[in-house]
């Protein structure tokens, strides 16, 4: 155990938090154990499986590999923050619609990786989707339905954006 402790302030799902963290704590640990946000899953803790993926300042990251002291002043979006008063995010809707959820354990990380992709690239090709999700392991679906869901959500989001113009 390291003795070092640091008080950090950061935003999670648009809410301000101030917590004391030690140097060896990961963002995933802080989210789950200190903030009670257990939607973010922990599996491999090595950045291999992607179950703990969240958005850190808009970019998809493995939260098990991010050290908690480094997130001082950052903005985090987790699966719990994706839906709002207006309803589910287009990705959540598409995952349901396409049957891209089975046991559901990889789902939060998978959706957050897809969210990161669509923020960067609103019209990804099938190959780009597969590449972006390569780091998120799913043992149930065989990925086909997940790829279909991301394509479908991307289309919905683009249509909504063009309607808004």
């Amino acid at each position, binding site marked *: 155990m390291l003795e070092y402790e640091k008080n950090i302030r950061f935003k999670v799902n648009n809410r301000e938090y101030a917590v004391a963290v030690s140097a060896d704590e990961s963002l995933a640990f802080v989210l789950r154990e200190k903030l009670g946000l257990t939607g973010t899953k922990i599996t491999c803790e090595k950045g291999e499986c992607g179950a703990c993926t969240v958005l850190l300042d808009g970019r998809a990251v493995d939260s098990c590999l991010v050290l908690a002291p480094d997130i001082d002043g950052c903005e985090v979006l987790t699966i719990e923050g994706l839906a709002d008063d207006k309803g589910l995010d287009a990705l959540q809707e598409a995952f349901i619609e*396409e049957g891209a*959820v*089975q046991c559901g354990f990889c789902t939060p990380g998978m959706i957050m990786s897809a969210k990161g992709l669509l923020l960067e690239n609103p019209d990804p090709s099938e190959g780009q989707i597969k590449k972006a999700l390569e780091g998120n392991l799913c043992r149930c*679906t065989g990925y086909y339905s*997940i790829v279909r869901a991301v394509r479908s959500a991307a289309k919905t989001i683009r249509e909504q954006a063009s309607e808004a113009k």
Partner: protein
Amino acid sequence: MSHKVIGKSELRARVIDKVTGVQKYAHDRKIHGMLYAKLLRSEHARAKILSIDVSETLKLYGVVAVVRGEDIEKPMPRFGSVAQDQPLLADGEVKYHGEPVAAVVAQTYEIAEAALKTIKVEYAPQPSVCTVEEALNQDIPPVNGGESNVFRQFDFGWGDVEEAEKQSHYVLRDTYCYPMIFHFPIENYSCLAAPEDGGVVLYSPIQHPHLLRRVVADCLKLPFSKVRVIGEEIGGAFGGKGYAKAEPLAAYLALKLRTPVKIAMDMDEGFFMARRLAARVDITTGFDENAHITFQNIIADYLIGAYADAAPRVVQKAGYLSGGPYRTPHAKMIARAIHSNTVSSTAFRGFGMPQLVWAFEQQMNQAALHFGMDTLEIRRRNLPYKGETLVPGDIPVDGDWHEVLDKAAKLLDWGKKQKPGQGKSLAVGIKTGIPNSTSNAIVKLHSDGSVTVNAATAEMGQGARTVFAQIAAEKLCVPYQLVSVILSDTGAAPYDTSTAGSRSTVSMGTAVEKACEDVLLQVKELAADLAGMDIESIEVNEGVIRAGEREMTYSQLVQGTYGPNQGDIVGRGQFRGDNTKGHLLGGMADFYEFIIVGAAVTVDEKTGKIDVDKLVSASDIGKVMNHLQAKGQEEGGMIMGLGQAMMECMRYDPATGRLLNGNPLDYCVPTAMDISDEVAGVLIENADGPGPFGSKGMGEGPAIPVGPAVGGAVFDATGVMLRELPITSEKLFFALKDRDKNKSVS
């Protein structure tokens, strides 16, 4: 007959929870005052334990207790579903790399984990065995004592194989190998035990809650009524979370320390929990001059690991069907469960069949070449028709398997010309449901007209919860959204054999269906009572009760009977599988799970690289209960099969018997980049199954024959017949070199 809810892609139960992060799994569960246990695991494949020094560990802040095998009262409590052979903690010796030797119980997970490093164990290593060949070598003492490592042997067969061999026109004899495979659930293993009422409550992501209850009760000498298992929503299981793992130890620690104890594993520890049985299959098949099978003679040697777990049952049940899906006039099968100093093995999607299917389907491709026959045609000639006998004394063929074959061939564009380097193949997957099983369900119709189903089936992503809600909604004519399904609590749900063998739709589905019928009968009785009429005069249609001129809703009936806002109508239903006396498996199969998978590949001959262009499946499932979920099982199963076909393999160091790749970096499973470019499937519905609405079991099927589908496609593309999985590019590269060398010699 048209259905309102069955067959529709109704919303997966709790899917909103799953996409919003609301869904809780075992790992998320905490109880006030809960302690964490972490396990110290053996570094050796086989060793005597000379001493375990925990003096430094006990001094650490936050450490509550350290328990070693020697600290547990003797005789050491042991557990297991087939044999009670697994000690709570190693009892003076270790039998595989990763076996738990001590448990540290601490205030936090992190303290417990760090404390493990302070335990000093002195071992005296012993020679170990980690392959079938080594295990059958008599020079090394058997893993569990006795005369040999052959723990169980099962003999099956019919006819006269020796005579049939003499009469055969062509005989093929080959050996096929299937490696150890890890289930690799994305949710790690964990469980939580809390003392209660002189017994224990166990929270676990367990497939078979009643079986776990029995195993823990037997191990700790508690009555069943004092062990309550609450099965959590499972984050992937595939057979790996069927049988007791750390639960007996968690229960023991909770009772000993009189406080809740959680054992949470990391992913690497998962590799020490369970795996698929490795197998070496010697298969001899005879054919007549028209390529009809004349006999099969099979010796299937399964490497089961240090302890029995469910492996002997896997060996027995698969061995029974090792003749495969074809007409076999004469058959002789020997299936052996062989101990080794490796992780114990258990059920895994297909229950011993993928190992056999790999052998007999690759051999069919080989035979087709000999006869100069299309690989589709040789299968067509040997596949039985509906009603024919497959295994004497068991149910006849229960589906139109030729329809399945033809539809799969069509999906794969069979007969279409291919470019050089391209190849395609179909492979048949088959298995039987679980014989002599029981399921019970309770359906409660509430006073507001909504419905709750109680059943002990586990939800692990296969979609049982959704299907049961659909059955109840259909039978009772209530809106699907008004049905809740509470699963897996042995304190609330009646007995169920297991969530395994693709049985839940058929078995528990039937129990739910019958419980709904029981509810409807009671509805009529109560309505007759209320209206002062005969029960025969009561009609229930579309959820509306008619008693003469009077019409009532369910809600009005319940409240009319029991008073405002009071009462439930409670229905019970049961499914019993066949239990024919003297049957070798305890009873006949409920159904055959029959599927054909096809693969189209392109091989780069220079490098051995294999691109899987297309995967297809055709499944005989009787009736689709939920289209989206059924399709999900097909696609997901094929990719699980593809991993086993092309990349997955647990590797043991032959020198030390240590597992070399027990982590997610070194053990590769398919990612989104590894799937085929195209996928297609067809679900065949002839409503000829024993389950509700004519359904049969499905879900395991698509994972079973992917190995020989890819292997056959590679054979088609290159002429190279591989007999050991996985088919890696490296393996193919060297096999292609050998092929070319032999060509130039001849």
